[in-house]
């Protein structure tokens, strides 16, 4: 699961609430702030858990911004393929606006 990402490079940029709209196993990414050892508060302020067991991905320290790309386990849990630190300064609100546009009006520019 998720391996097709490495061939297509396609993943859905989502926020927390959109995770409820995708199927289990879908490849997605969310951006948020680290809220605990396996917890991220997403750009729309929803808590998402990372299934880190068996993963070689490491979480940045709390307070850092992070992008989690992985497969959906359930509407509030992602198994990460790649965790990327976005540093200590990042405009989450602006990113969330982008996610809304990329999933709605301008979907054709981003998704198949």
């Amino acid at each position: 699961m998720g391996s097709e990402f490495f061939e297509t490079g396609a993943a859905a940029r989502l926020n927390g609430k959109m995770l409820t709209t995708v199927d289990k196993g879908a490849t997605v990414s969310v951006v948020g702030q680290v809220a605990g050892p396996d917890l991220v508060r997403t750009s729309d302020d929803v808590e998402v858990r990372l299934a880190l067991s068996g993963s070689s991905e490491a979480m940045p320290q709390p307070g850092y911004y992070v992008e989690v790309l992985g497969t959906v386990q359930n509407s509030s849990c992602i198994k990460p393929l790649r965790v990327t630190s976005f540093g200590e300064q990042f405009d989450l609100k602006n990113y969330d606006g982008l996610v809304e546009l990329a999933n709605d009006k301008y979907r054709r520019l981003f998704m198949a």
Partner: protein
Amino acid sequence: MMQDSGGGFVSQPSQEQQQQEKRRNSALVPLTIKMALNAQVSDDILLVDDREVSQVRICGNIMRVDQTETKYVYFIEDQTGLMEVTHWNNAGDEDLNTLRDRREKMAQRTYVAVVGQLKSYEARVTLSAYDIRPIEDMNELTHHFLETIYVSAKTTSSSPSSSSSYAPNAQTGVPMDGAREGDNNNNNNNGSLTSIQLQVLEHYSLHGTGDEGLHIESVIYALNTISPADVKAAVDALTNEGHLYSTVDDDHHKSTDSE
């Protein structure tokens, strides 16, 4: 003036042709990888949103790097697609030490910004990079995609064939008023603006919606990836072109697009 009457350059294109060529190809277009891969190819010309593109910018994450004597080949994804980007060792004017230092920072899993020429070869679209560098402030990624949306919206809304199928969507509480479609179908083909001018104009359109518009220093502060001198030059150019106008004093400007 020195003139060589011996000839030898007879087939040189006229100045006018050169000018035209330059104008047609000069705009740097921000794209998602999906848009680049889906470019329509006709003869040697690549079309995105029915408009010719040549120089483009993409931002994405390096999935793999192949290194040879003469070039680096990066496989870059931006979550909309995966693209092959070739960076020749003689690309650009950088000395090789600078290039080597920078390349060391661009391993797998690094976010990078690439400017280059889009090419089509045997039905495959690839990018030949003039410049590739790591993204240090990740807000640049957000900005790149917003700019991509903005430019695409402007391009498609100014083409007469596009139907205005964009009904206002009350459910999307998107804070980016300037990116709304259908606001200005009249005169907004921004194809001749430089990337910096577009970024500056976009900033005014998105954030300078009050009566006073924005103070230039706030724009310089917000667009910290662009030098203050370049922001000022862009504001001057945009004012001369009629995209911006000054409001309460010479330091405040507002986009002619924003209400």
